[in-house]
């Protein structure tokens, strides 16, 4: 039985994260959060937007993930994310600015499509702020 999981997160832009971890939890598009421990049965599923956490040496760490796929095996979790950031890559100021912009867009939105776009932008910025422990993110 595998003792640890190799977590790999890659995006089209760059490989984001790769390390041996003890536990992973990630958001799926359709079925809420998915927790994975070593020895998990192989699963393939679509990833939603939100926060992924992994436990490494007893410490909980967070990553943001936005869409994509996850492949789970007994000793590995591979996440093919559309976008993803580690805490170091996050730009708080940009996320805050993007939240403000999204709020403004949301007010001005006329069509359904505008509304959905603005809401998606707002959600994305809130996820990033929440990841960084920013007060604005906690209302999410």
């Amino acid at each position: 039985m595998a003792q640890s999981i190799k977590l790999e997160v890659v995006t089209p832009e760059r490989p984001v994260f790769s390390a041996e971890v003890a536990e992973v939890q990630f958001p799926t598009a359709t079925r809420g959060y998915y927790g994975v421990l070593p020895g998990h049965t192989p699963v393939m599923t679509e990833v939603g937007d939100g926060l992924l956490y992994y436990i490494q040496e007893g410490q909980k760490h967070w990553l943001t993930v936005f869409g994509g796929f996850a492949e789970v095996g007994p000793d590995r979790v591979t996440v093919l994310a559309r976008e993803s950031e580690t805490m170091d890559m996050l730009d708080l100021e940009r996320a805050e600015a993007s939240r403000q912009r999204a709020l403004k867009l949301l007010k001005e939105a006329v069509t359904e499509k505008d509304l959905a776009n603005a809401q998606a932008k707002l959600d994305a910025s809130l996820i990033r702020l929440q990841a960084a422990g920013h007060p604005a993110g906690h209302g999410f």
Partner: protein
Amino acid sequence: MASLQDIRRRIRSVKNTQQVTKAMKMISAVKLRKSQERLVALRPYAGKMLEVVRRVVGRIRGDVEIQPGPAAQAFLSPREEKRIRMVFVASDKGLCGGFNANVAKAATAFVKECTSEIVHLDVVGKRAVEWAKKQKLTPAKEYLNIPLVGFQRVVTEISESAAAQYHAGEIDALYIVYNYFNSAVAQTPTVTRVFPMEVDRRGEDRNATEVSHLLEPDPNTVLETLLPRFVETELLRNLLESSASEHGARMAAMDKASSNAGEMISKLTLTMNKIRQAGITNQIIEIVSGANA
């Protein structure tokens, strides 16, 4: 024979041209590096994507209980190709050697030999638009002056609509014609079928020993969402290949142009010196013969 002043003017003009070509070469080198970096960064993602697709396809093929949906057919049992969609990628600017001419030749040959009907044509780059005009084809969509960061948007647009067309039965295959990036100095015009995709059966044997995957929420939904993502990745890779090739080709062309200009300058300088010397000799002869008389 040209006068001394004419030649001097000529040298000055060639020198100016050389400066321009040298600058263009330098710019292309920087752009080439950027495109290449993106290409290298995409590789792990594209590799993993292919692996995942293989696993899912292997799983579906190995399980008779799963009824493959329309998306699964794209991977498993391609239908007869009657109508196809084609993407042609060239550059926006010229001065890059045979880059556009070669890929256009490949595209023309493909259009001529292709037995199925091209129902949808996307062109990327101004030169591609010109090619389409010459071929009397009407592109459904033209993508002009796309910066490196805009590629993602373009490929998302194409792949989403291509997948939708496949589902609706409007197209049976998606082809892309572009320049494959061999190295900074060599490009190969390439025609590739992006999907339906031929899944390598050798890859499956290796995975057959593993426990097969649960596909959540169900196999067809997974494949339906996986297909556009996979097409997107492949297209993005091809666009980046083309971009890197373009800058590589331009760099090589400009390097050649700069050295040609250098050669021309040294030849002209030699002629100029000869004429100047001939003039001086004539004058001396005149003075000497004048003194003798």
